[in-house]
């Protein structure tokens, strides 16, 4: 049995060598984000009276509760400072460690590198164990670093550790889950998608549960992201809740190991069926669609479900406090001027951010196809560089619009079912489309990198993260306007609020067009990189 783990140590070192920069930056990013938020809130709400008022506004605003969860103790400065980062931060931690685990397990296997290593003195479970060790270790470091940063910002020690460990254990739980999904599918992409769908479902479950009942109901308790909230850092510090993610890991890790021990290298639970002996594909656009359709359809289905869910709770979202302070606070939290539609506008804003990730992922296929040597094969045929790049770009750009349209429509349908008012359906679908240009800017930036500096393409995810953080937390941190303006999401109209300005759409669209155009110039001139 010990043989199954032989070589784990060497693989841990290899993984750390490959990820040292990435993990360090992420950990510093999380710790910094937490500390900044805490310090900013302490400055904004120095006395208990102002904090209680702010927290009560949050708890009474269904939109905020659905998206971030409630403030569990209105008198606690920690609970107020971090309510936006609790579930949201846990979800990002989960995504990060899903990526880490898949990257060192199934992705290595698919690339054939594990076959090379496996010929050495390497146990069958070594890669999985090493990936889990790295993910668990990094989760804990992330949690402790964040706790340290919160303590430095002046928050209580116990609560800070409860918060940091809450993030850490969310990371551990989802890393373990990714260990299982990595065994189920033969492709890394599919394994990663399965785990990410679980993250999205966990987020949605707690949203519904939190809106239904102030402290969360049974749906919140079904969600590993809900557990992070239920630790209630700075509001009771319920340490025992951390047993739940521990239990999840204790179930998932052995399951993953049993699955891995029983299967062949390279195989999944589902075996490949034979394909057609003659192909119908006759163009690069047909090929691009074939490669991308599953991901696009999954996103559309996900947005439909997410939108419908949030739309259907929009009627239970009542009790906007109609006071000047409430309006001011909502604005600081990134809400809109028109409180009536704040909930729907906030939902669409979240969709606008998520869909940008789809646009980046879909356009990144260009980079992936080039790195995998597939572009080399295609460009040796009578296909121009422009046509090949366009085949994937069109799917990314149109996919962004399509997914948003579906999401907006679903929000409208959900609201219709809940309120009986069908009038919003069309308006919401159009409002969702107003988020398209901001996402296109990031797609365009990716293509610019691809055209000129293909090795730097992964940097786009860092840019995306910064744009999200600036958009979400900039107002809270009192960031200068020029910093805020760097995020494309800030310029998206706050529809469906009636007085939302559409002016931002023009520069966003122009920027996207210019970035794409410059990308093409670079792509037509540069050398093809090869595997």
């Amino acid at each position, binding site marked *: 049995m010990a043989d199954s783990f032989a070589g784990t140590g060497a693989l841990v070192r290899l993984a750390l060598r490959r990820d040292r920069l990435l993990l360090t930056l992420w950990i510093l990013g999380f710790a910094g984000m937490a500390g900044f938020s805490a310090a900013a809130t302490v400055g904004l709400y120095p006395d208990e009276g102002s904090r209680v008022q702010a927290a009560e506004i949050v708890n009474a605003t269904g939109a905020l509760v659905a998206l971030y969860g409630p403030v569990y103790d209105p008198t606690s400065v920690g609970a107020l400072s971090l309510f936006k980062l609790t579930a949201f931060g846990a979800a990002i931690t989960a995504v990060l460690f899903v990526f880490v685990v898949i990257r060192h397990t199934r992705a290595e296997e698919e690339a054939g590198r594990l076959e090379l290593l496996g010929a050495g003195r390497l146990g069958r479970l070594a890669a999985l164990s090493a990936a889990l060790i790295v993910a668990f270790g990094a989760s804990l470091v992330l949690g402790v670093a964040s706790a340290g940063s919160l303590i430095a910002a002046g928050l209580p020690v116990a609560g800070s550790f409860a918060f940091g460990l809450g993030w850490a254990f969310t990371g551990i739980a989802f890393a373990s889950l990714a260990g299982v999904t990595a065994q189920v599918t033969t492709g890394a992409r599919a394994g990663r998608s399965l785990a990410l769908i679980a993250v999205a479902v966990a987020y949605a479950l707690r949203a519904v549960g939190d809106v239904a009942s102030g402290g969360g109901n049974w749906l919140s308790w079904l969600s590993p992201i809900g557990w992070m909230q239920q630790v209630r850092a700075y509001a009771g510090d319920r340490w025992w809740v951390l047993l739940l993610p521990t239990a999840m890991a204790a179930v998932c890790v052995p399951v993953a190991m049993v699955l891995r021990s029983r299967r062949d290298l390279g195989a999944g639970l589902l075996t490949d069926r034979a*394909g*057609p002996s003659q*192909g119908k*594909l006759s163009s690069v656009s047909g090929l691009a669609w074939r490669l991308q359709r599953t991901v696009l359809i999954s996103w559309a289905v996900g947005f439909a479900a997410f939108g419908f869910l949030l739309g259907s709770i929009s009627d239970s979202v009542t009790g906007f406090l109609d006071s000047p302070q409430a309006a001011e606070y909502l604005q600081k939290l990134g809400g809109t001027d028109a409180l009536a539609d704040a909930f729907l506008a906030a939902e669409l804003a979240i969709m606008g951010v998520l869909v940008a990730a789809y646009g980046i992922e879909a356009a990144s296929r260009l980079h992936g196809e080039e790195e995998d*040597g597939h572009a080399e*094969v295609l460009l040796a045929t009578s*296909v121009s560089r422009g046509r090949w790049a366009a085949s994937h770009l069109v799917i990314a750009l149109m996919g962004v619009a399509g997914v948003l349209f579906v999401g907006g429509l679903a929000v409208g349908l959900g609201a219709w079912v809940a309120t009986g008012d069908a009038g919003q359906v069309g308006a919401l679908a159009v409002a969702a489309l107003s988020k398209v240009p901001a996402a296109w800017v990031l797609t365009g930036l990716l293509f610019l990198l691809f055209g000129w500096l293909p090795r730097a393409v992964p940097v786009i995810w860092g840019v995306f993260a910064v744009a999200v953080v600036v958009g979400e937390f900039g107002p809270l941190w009192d960031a200068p306007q020029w910093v805020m303006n760097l995020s494309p999401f800030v310029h998206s109209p706050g529809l469906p609020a009636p007085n939302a300005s559409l002016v931002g759409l023009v520069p966003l669209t122009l920027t996207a067009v210019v970035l794409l155009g410059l990308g093409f110039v670079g792509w037509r001139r540069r050398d093809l990189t090869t595997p």
Partner: protein
Amino acid sequence: MAAVIDVQGVVKRFGSTIALDGLDLQVEAGEVHAFLGPNGAGKTTTLRVLLGQLRIDAGHMTLLGRDPWADAVELHKDLAYVPGEVNLWPQLSGGEVIDLLGRLRGGLDPKRRQRYVDLFELDPTKKARTYSKGNRQKVALVAALASDVPLLLLDEPTSGLDPLMDARFRQCMHEYRETGGTVLLSSHILSEAEALSDRVTIIRSGRAMESGSLAQLRHLARTKVVATVERMPDALAELPGVHEVTVDGQQVSCQVDPAGMPALLSVLADAGVQALSSQQPTLEEVFLRHYQGGEDG
């Protein structure tokens, strides 16, 4: 006949690394031209430059009379390429890949497709994910051979094939040449070059060291001469074109350039030669001389 491929003084740099350092290469219409060199000599870079996938830094080149970079799309209707490392889409079947590549090249002949699928014993219904290296190479070969194109660019096309498939590949090359097609084939397998090619270019460190028919190349190399003589001649080592003279009793052996042969023979005759043997250089010796030599090759 016009050169199908004409490369003159091409330089390609990757940062500070010089991949092609003034490369010359001429491939005539209708010939199978082997492009030989050790690993990292620049064979694959040359093929990628010819495909318009890499931009050259200096020099001049034409492919079928046109510019490989600017006219890439038009040119690729008339050629098929088999990469050294064939990477396919894991979720597509071999048959789908063959048909896709064929159509992107402007169509392929279903009868030829079927013939080559059978010849290489390829199962086209399998997903590319499950193919071995050799089978992926077969997919690319079938896609290339089934297209009706006048030029094939093949990068170590047999490196994953078993001996039986290798023989079938050679048969395909002969047939293709019969129909007037031109082939540029990179390889480091000498027997393959010897069996298939009309002409050979040897490349090292991004530079063509020799180019010509196999007979010409052999002629360029030195012949080993061993003689038993009555009296040892003094001036043997000073003769032009004679190298590596060693004396062992009455026996002398040396290497001689083709030009130095007459003078050597007359000196040996004067020395009362009793026994004489000469050995033509093997192709291996020709190559090893270029692969291992210093800057002067």
